[in-house]
Every structure is written in structure tokens, then in C-alpha cells.
């Protein structure tokens, strides 16, 4: 197990180099350069000024040299400064946005699991009944409805018509002067719509997973045995079946790790939430190479780490796998 772990950890580095090389080339292949995005079609800029700006950003060097410089900085954990006109360190720009995205995603993830698991169980235990069908319709509705459209409708209903909830942003004007609980309540009101809609949209996947996994377990011999020996149905389901049915769901949790720092552009744009999705999108549109590369590398690292954790947790949770490897 220890050797396996070390091997897996060491594998992360060549993978990261591969990922960074590909993304570096792809982003540089996209038409337009950072300088172009800032000054293209602006009349008061001469060719000399343009060239000066390119030199300032090091864009006049050959691509492999640029990559070399970038990697050598990265090796010292220096992600560089943004090519955006604020010239701020990339890490600072990311650090500013991660808390919002992370906490929103964590809340949404917890809600998603808390809702999807009972829904899945309910659907499985009432298989092919009206309950099961209604649940299917409900979760697939959430899956199929375009989130931005639903978000706009809800904003109109709850924000404009009923005036119950704020429409966008995270805080109301003057919320910084409120006492702590008032401030928290204000924040919570701002989060109801985005978190609620994000959760509604993601229920389908997990709850269907839970349902099928539960059904599979319920059809196994040991459940029949349990029922035959007269165990109460409640106990059969929640004690005997649930434990095993949860296994694949735990793995899914591991895979959700990299998703936690990635935000959704559309979602963040509609709700005016200053998260990672917007930052990345703006970075790509402005061809802000260091920023884009920085986010991608952190994302790639977390994905690899998430995969590793998922594999490990699977091994820990399932004795068959653990013993198989030993």
C-alpha cells in the first residue's frame, strides 16, 4: 500500500508537466495576444508602443523559451504576475476568489448529498410506483432546464415581483454595519437562489446513482436472507442495504474535489458572484496567459489529487479491494 501510494504521488509530476505543456501550447495557439486584446483597434497606439508592450510581457521570445521561463518560475512556486493591466501576482488574484467559490460549492455539495441520497433511496424502495416516477420527473426536470433560464425566472419572481430575496451579489448595501447575525442572515438570503438552483440542477446525477446502487444491493441474497429471517424492512434498508449502497457514492465525493474550486461562468455571471469561473473566463478572453496557466495547473493538481483520494477511499471502504491489493 505504501509503495503504491508513493508511486501514485510521483506519477503526478510527469502528468502535470504533460498537462501544462498541452495547455500552454493551446492557449498560445488561440488567436490574439494579451497586448492585442488590450489595444487592438485603438488608434492612438503606434507599432512601437505595441512592440514595447510585447517586450514588457516577454511575448517577443520564442514559445519554447517562454514555456521554459514559466516552468522555471513555477518550480519555485512563482505563478508570475497577471498580464491584465493590474499586473498583480496570479496567486493573489486566485486567493481572492477561492473562498467564495469554495464555500458556495461546499454548501451546494452538502445540500446535494443530503437531498440526493434520501431521494435515491426513496425512489429505489418505491420502484416503479408513482413516487418513483414523480421523483424521476422532478430530478430530470432540474437536469434538463437550462440553469441560467431558471435563475432568471426565479430572480424575477422572488426578487422583482415578490421582493423576498435579493437578486444578485453577496451582500446588501450597508450590510457591513449590521451585527454579526444580521450580516450572516443577509449573506444567507443572497445565497438561497444560487445555491438552491445549483443544487436542483445537480440532483439528477447523484440521486439516480444512489437509486441504481440501492436497487442492486436490494436484489442481493443477503438482503433476501435478512428479510427471510424477519428483520424489519426499515432495518433491512437503512442498516444492511444502505452501507453497501453508499460505497460508489463515497467515490463520487472524491471526484467532486477538483470541482470545488472551479466555478461556473454562466452561474457566477448571472448572480454577480466573484468566483473562479468568472476569473478564468476573463483570463481566457483577455489572453492573460499566466492567470489561465495558474488556474489550470492548480485545477489539474487538484484533479489528480482527487482521483488519488477517491481510489484510496474506495480501498479503505471496501475490504475486497483492500485485500485484493495486499
Amino acid at each position, binding site marked *: 500500500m505504501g509503495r503504491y501510494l508513493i508511486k501514485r504521488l510521483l506519477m503526478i509530476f510527469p502528468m502535470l508537466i504533460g498537462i501544462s505543456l498541452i495547455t500552454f501550447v493551446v492557449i498560445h495557439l488561440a488567436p490574439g495576444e494579451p497586448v492585442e486584446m488590450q489595444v487592438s*483597434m485603438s488608434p492612438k497606439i503606434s507599432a512601437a*508602443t505595441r512592440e514595447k508592450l510585447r517586450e514588457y510581457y516577454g511575448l517577443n521570445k520564442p514559445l519554447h523559451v517562454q514555456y521554459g521561463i514559466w516552468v522555471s518560475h513555477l518550480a519555485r512556486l512563482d505563478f508570475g504576475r497577471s498580464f*491584465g493591466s493590474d499586473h498583480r501576482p496570479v496567486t493573489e488574484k486566485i486567493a481572492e476568489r477561492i473562498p467564495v467559490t469554495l464555500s458556495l460549492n461546499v454548501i451546494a455539495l452538502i445540500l446535494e448529498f443530503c437531498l440526493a441520497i434520501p431521494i435515491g433511496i426513496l425512489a429505489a424502495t418505491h420502484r416503479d410506483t408513482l413516487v418513483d416516477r414523480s421523483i424521476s420527473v422532478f430530478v430530470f426536470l432540474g437536469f434538463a432546464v437550462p440553469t441560467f433560464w431558471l435563475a432568471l425566472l426565479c430572480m424575477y419572481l422572488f426578487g*422583482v415581483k415578490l421582493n423576498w430575496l435579493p437578486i*444578485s451579489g453577496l451582500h446588501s448595501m450597508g450590510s457591513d454595519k449590521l451585527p454579526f447575525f444580521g450580516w450572516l442572515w443577509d449573506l444567507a438570503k443572497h445565497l438561497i437562489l444560487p445555491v438552491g438552483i445549483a443544487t436542483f440542477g445537480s440532483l439528477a446525477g447523484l440521486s439516480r446513482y444512489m437509486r441504481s446502487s440501492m436497487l442492486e444491493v436490494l436484489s442481493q441474497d443477503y438482503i433476501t436472507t435478512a428479510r427471510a429471517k424477519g428483520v424489519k424492512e426499515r432495518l433491512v434498508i437503512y442498516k444492511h442495504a444502505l452501507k453497501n449502497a453508499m460505497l460508489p457514492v463515497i467515490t463520487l465525493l472524491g471526484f467532486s474535489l477538483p470541482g470545488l474550486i472551479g466555478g461556473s461562468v454562466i452561474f457566477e*455571471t*448571472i448572480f454577480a458572484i466573484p468566483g473562479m469561473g468568472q476569473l478564468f473566463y476573463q483570463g481566457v478572453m483577455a489572453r492573460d496567459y499566466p492567470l489561465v496557466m495558474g488556474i489550470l495547473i492548480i485545477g489539474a493538481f487538484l484533479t489528480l489529487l482527487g482521483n488519488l483520494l477517491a481510489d484510496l477511499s474506495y480501498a479503505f471502504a471496501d475490504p475486497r479491494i483492500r485485500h485484493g491489493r495486499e
Partner: protein
Amino acid sequence: MTLGRRLALVLFAFLAFGCAQGTPEQKPRAAAKGGPPAYGDALVTGSIGEPSNLIPVLSTDSASSDISGLVYNGLVRYDKDLKLEGDLAQSWDVSRDGLTITFHLRHGVKWHDGEPFTSRDVLYTYKVLVDPKTPTAYSDAYKQVKTAEAPDPYTFRVTYPKPFAPALESWGMNILPAHLLEGKDITKSPLIRHPVGTGPYIFKEWITGQKVTLESNPDYWEGRPYISKYVYRIIPDASTMYMELKSGGIDEMPLSPVQYQRQTNTPEFLSRFNKYRYPASAYTYLGYNLRLPLFQDKRVRQAMTCAINKEEIIQGVLFGMGQIAHGPFKPGSWAYKPKVNDDFGYDPARALALLKEAGWVMGKDGILVKDGKQFAFTIMLNQNDQRVKTAQIVQQRLRKVGIVAKIRVMEWASFITNFIDTGKFECVILGWTLGQDPDIYDVWHSSKTGPKELNFIHFKNAEVDRLIEEGRETFDIEKRKACYWRIQDILAEEQPYTFLYVPDALPAVSSRFHGIVPAPAGIGYNLIKWYVPKAEQVY
């Protein structure tokens, strides 16, 4: 908005409401409670984009200049009638030969941190603009300066090698505090996120991705602004912003034509908001690649203009919220000639006659043919809803006179890099944002046809070249006017572009704000005089 920014004809820019002109129109509204001017309250405004950098020489986006325009001042600025007036400079003299401009600076102006403002600050701003180590997009106008000097704390003098009319306007650039920046690396200055200026509003805080807050400057030399707080909320989605406006989350925003015409005429909306309407400083055009034989005959270009119904485009695309463009100047400005000799208005019969003259004959399938080739080409444009609709209307009209136009829509960066910069296009639909100074050297002079330069259609006309040069080398408005009026007649005759339309700026502002006086400069020019009567204050 700084003058430096206004100076730039930045393509595809925001139609910010502060820099428009013409005759504003105000819709009637329900009687407000009213009351005398009072200090207090806050103006919450919405912006799609977030400022990037609050040191104005380093940023190029409209959001940054919205904020820095309130925090900083320039030496000069445009007044409500779009005439240059003194800002930090009380007055200025231009020498007889037009080579030297002497600015007499205002006494007693203080930076927000209490330091006095002097000519040292102006000299520093000039030096940082021309410093090769400064990554600024604005250096070109200042590199023309031969010498810049500050003989005493309240005098600043610049000399040019030859008279250069747009020079005066370039001193509208926001002046930076030398005592905080001199000798430091400007790209790493804390002022990037915490500006210190001389303007009517003092920077308070900037929460990334959420808002920028400014507070009124009690010691402002023009008097303390009535509205105590200015909050600039970042709301990246236009539909969200509109709902925020309706629910009271923001107090003002620019409306789209459909919102202005169709969605905001309820008594409820009109009682809570005032809508304003005036021509924006921008126009949209259909440009021809004049290097191609197809478009080299001016009769063909004239015929295309005659075939296109501009009024129909304005109705269809802008819901009537705009006007026909005839040339490259702002309607209503002094450089604009109200009636050009022949503007080739909508007239399909004339179009057909002109095309026949140019040797095109109607084929059996209803498509014009010359030398065995059909009249067909592609119109290229970027993903911009209004331009896409415009292209479709143009396409239909051209088809009626036997011309086949295909439409190709693409992403901005690849459009500019792969097609405009390389000259590989036939026809484009694009727009220009106009500065206040009418100098059009960069877009129309024949020397500007190089790679990545803005005369990308390759318009070359010796008379226009001469008139453009004459126009920028004199400070005499009458002489300049004569040049620009003649240019408009030539462009109308040549039709290198089919000038399509000038859209209207359509801001809506909460009706609790009083003191808004629409003028050719729009409504934002007198922000410090806007007020909310005590009874109506909400924040």
C-alpha cells in the same frame, strides 16, 4: 471618463453615457416629492465590467476610467457643450505660432491625502507617460512633445515641434500624485487598487468582483458633491442588472433599445425612473476592402449604399433609438456637416442604374453578372447581436438588386487577427467609438494603411490626406471646420464605408435624483450637482 480615454476611438467600446451629445430628451414622469438640494444619500450604479487598474495611465477599460474619472482630474476637460475648459488648469495660453501651450494651474487644490497639488505632479505624469518602462497604451500623444517644463509650482509648459490641435485635449489625461509615485515602480504601486486623486470623490474600498465605493470629497475645489457616496456595483449580466434596477438594487444603468421602447413604459417604472435619450458617440458601418477589384469602382459602392435602407435598420435593430449616419463625425458637433452634397439615400432604382453604368448586367437567376462572374461576397463581423441583425437586413436588401452577400460571424480576436490585420476580408460590419476631437488621422489618412493600423480598408485619397493634416495643425476652429466639412463631402461621394447608424445612449436614473440637466455631453458631466432631497433619501 478621462479625456485621454475619450480621445481614443476605441472600437467595440462601451457606450458610456457620460460622453454623448446631441439633443437629450426626457420623458414625462410622475411628480416627485422634491425639496431643496441636500447632502447625503448614495448613488448605486451597475457595471458589466470590473475596473482593472485605478492608475489611469495603465488601464484601457471603460470601468477603470469610470472610477478614475471621479477620483482624478486632468488639466482640461470638456464642459456640458463639449467645449474644452480648465480643470486643474485654471486657464491656458497657446503661443502665436501654435507650438507652445502654457497651463496656469489652480491654486489651493489638495490631493486626497492633504498634500498640495503643483506642477511637479503634472511633470511627473508626463514623464511616466513617455517613460519606456511604463506599460501604457497612451504614450504616443505625449511623445510628440519636444520639451515639457514646470518653471514654477503653478505653471506647466509644453512645446511641440509643429502645431498639433489634438494636443490640447491630450492634457485631459488624469494627473497622478508625484509625491506617492515618484521613484517607485508604478506597476507595483498600491495606488493600482487604492487611488489617491484630486477629484470630487475619494476612494474608499474595492471589493473584488463586487463593488467599488467612493465617498464625496468635502474639500473639492468646485464644492462638495451633494451625493455622499458613489457605489459602483459589478453585475456582469445585463438581464440581472435590469432586474436589480427594477428591484431597487441599483439606481441607474444604460437601457437597451428594447428595454427603453418596450419594457419600461409602465406607469410604475416611469414614476420611479427618469429615462434619457441622446446620440451616443459611436457609429456602425459597412466597410469595403478597397484593395479588391470588386469594390474599387466607386459607383459600385455608391450603388450598395443606395440599395441599403438605413432607416429600416434603425427600426429593426434599434427600435428607432438611433439616427442615420452620413459620415465619421458626431451628429451635432461642430465638425459635423448637417447636409452633405449627396448622401446616396435609399433608392434601389438608382442602385441598379449605377451598377449598370459600372458594367454589371442582370443574369437570368436575378443575380448581377460582369465578365462571367456573379456579384457575390461575404460580410464578416463579430458576435454582436445588433451587428448580426444589421447584416441580415443588409443581405436582404442587396439581394433585391441582384447582389449575393453571405454572412460570416466569428469571435472578436480571430476576426481581428486572422482577417482584419491580414486584409483577408471583402466586407465588414464594425463600429467606431468617437472621441471629442474630430481628428480622424488614424482611421482615414493613407499613411495608416500598414499592418495592424486602422485604415484597414486601404482608403487613399490625396485631398483627404491634405485636409486631415491641415485640420490637425491649426487651433483655429473655423479653419478646422472647413477641412472637416469638405472631408464629409468627399467621403459621401467616395462611399468607402456605407455609414449605417449612430445609436442612442439610453440611461435610466432613479427619479429620486434631482439636478440632472441633459446637455450635449450627456448627463454624467454634472454628477457633483446631482442631489436627493432629504425626504427622498434612502441610504
